[in-house]
């Protein structure tokens, strides 16, 4: 669960998204660096499929106002 103070909304997120927010996006990041962080944590390669998943997730998080595009 995630509470977004500026909007007052509660979001229910899956474990992968929680990891991405906590670990992969702790500081300004690119799709590539976020994919690398997730790949390292999972012990898998940062392939195109993973990058596409990360990209989709980031777009959704942006739509919800949870992250901002630099």
């Amino acid at each position, binding site marked *: *669960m995630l*509470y977004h*103070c500026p909007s*007052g*909304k*509660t979001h*229910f997120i899956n474990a992968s998204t929680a990891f991405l927010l906590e670990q992969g996006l702790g500081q300004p990041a690119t799709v590539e660096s976020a994919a690398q962080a997730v790949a390292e944590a999972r012990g898998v390669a940062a392939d195109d499929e993973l990058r596409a998943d990360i990209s989709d997730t980031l777009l959704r998080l942006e739509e919800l106002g949870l992250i901002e595009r630099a």
Partner: protein
Amino acid sequence: MSAPVIPIARVGDLSPREFRSRLAGAGVEVRIGPFDVRVRARARGLAMPLHALWRDYPLLSGARVLHAHVEVRDVWRLWPWPRRKVRFIVDGRAPHEDMPAGQALPVLEWGINLVIALRYHCFLMLHAAVLERGGRALLLPAWPGHGKTTLCAALAHRGWRLFSDEFGLLRPGTRELVPLPRPMPLKNASIDVIRRFAPEAFLGPVIPKTRKGTIAHVRAPADSAVRARETATAAWLVFPRWEEGAPLTLEEIPKSEGYMQLATNAFNYEMLGEAGFATARDLVAGTRCFRLVYSDLETAVARLTELADGHDG
């Protein structure tokens, strides 16, 4: 030497005639859970049932600041044809349209619910029945029609202390639930179900054709009303659903699912902002969450009692 015990006057200490006279005059000041309320009423058929259903509420005396001044009174409408209606008033204002004559009791009880739900954001208010056993509280959050009030009334007559059939009142930052024992409005078939299940239960008049169907209120057991200042810590979060013919199942569910259902069943979760989130989060973290499906009241009550008494396997 111990301090003298001063008996608390209760509504039932007034004669029905005195109660009716006060209601129609300056009003009756009562403590309903954590709320001090003055009630006035000039509505046909209300005083006697209210005297019986509110029998164990403490009467207030002396000057004090009240949480609300509520009133129910019969009014006449002349257009399009002459007819009597019932008006609910809080602090001098009618918050909704007049209701059909003869429904003063549910109009008063729903009106008090409305006042609580809209005003008292010092609590996180969950849409849940709450009962206590062994010092720990059970919350039953549910959507209308899921059998919450029926199950609550049944438990309240089988060794559980009633906190509320409608409001789970939590002080933000705690897991302490505050009692608000009120008459429980049974609807339609549930009226006879509880009559059979708990013949000792006191029911008010059967009122047909309300906006929720036929209604009869069950009086809160005396022990619940007398101990209305005793809070309890939440221990179980059970989401009940009555399903005709369904076998009993009590299944533990992930806390994330419990949280989601709890938050969507709250009156003022979003209004409280981060404090509401933190309070609900801590509540769920400190409780076990279950989904209950039942059709037979007896076995559902027995299963929940086993859970509370530690025989839950």
